[in-house]
């Protein structure tokens, strides 16, 4: 096997995460799918870091993890704020800007 095989797994995980973002209606599940896409991108960075023999990819993956942690904190706070005012965690219900 060669290290490029990890890239296939990362690509598939990214694609599945993208389907989840489009198809699922629960805001928390959509958010989890976004996390899956971020993780797939990280796996790509680490794999290329190994293929190229430098640690730069790992540093970038580390930064991505920190940004993802921030994103989770703020995103979940937004979901809670929406849930508090609308009593629903469905992304279809948060359509106030449409009207």
């Amino acid at each position, binding site marked *: 096997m060669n290290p490029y095989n990890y890239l296939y797994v990362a*690509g598939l995980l990214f694609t599945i995460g993208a389907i989840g973002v489009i198809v699922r209606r629960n805001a928390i599940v959509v958010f989890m799918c976004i996390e899956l896409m971020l993780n797939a991108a*990280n796996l790509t960075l680490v794999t290329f870091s190994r293929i190229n023999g430098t640690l730069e990819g*790992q540093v970038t*993956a580390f930064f991505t993890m920190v940004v993802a*942690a*921030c994103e989770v904190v703020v995103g979940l706070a937004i979901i809670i704020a929406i849930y508090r005012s609308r009593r629903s*965690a469905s992304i279809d219900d948060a359509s106030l800007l449409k009207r």
Partner: protein
Amino acid sequence: MLTIQTPEAVMFWVLGPLSVIAAIGMLVVKKAVHSALLLAWIMITIALFYIAQDAVFLGIVQIVVYTGAVMMLFLFILMLVGVDASDSLTETIPGLRAIAITAALGFGGLLVSLISRATLGRPALGLAEANKDGNVQGLAKLLFSDYVFAFEAISALLITAALGAMVLAHHQRTVARPTQREQAIARFRTGSLASAAGLPNPGVYARHNAVDVPALLPDGTPAPNSISATLKARGDMLESNQFELGEVDNTVQEEK
């Protein structure tokens, strides 16, 4: 020059398909909690991939940050929000699912064919040279020299995110809490008098003393507001007519 040992290949061929299957499972399971558990499994397999690829520090960070902190936060929020109708897998926009799957097949096929055709034009190097002082030491050298400004900026981002979460989650009452007197007046003056005496108890007229059986109204129809909305959303509600007098099995004789 990088050679991949057999144990790593075995690990990849076992965990790689399992992680993809778990990801597909995330899309098709109904309950958000099950999605979260499947996602935790995917995170663990990705951490093992990192460790196998000589990114030991990132593998440990992945387990601590993702399966530890982030997934815990997700489960915590799931507990706060509870179960509601948005868990259902029904399609709200017609044709959305077909379009999404077609587009994803196209995108995934493009990615896979691109990876299989592209080549860097040189053999994979491996991290033995870069990690010769240790993975953590190598990362630390980079983080605190070339990437020190990015590192500082990201620490500022973390603090800002923590503050932002506190601001967003802080709940300030815009109107005063209604007193008991105001609540009593509101019960009688607004709308119908149906709920003036409080909501009906479950199962009162249903010959069943359970919370998941709605009470029967005088005309024999079940009263939907007699059971908890959570039980209704979860689909745990029983039909009250299965406890009707004619249906109940009373052939068993009492012992004398």
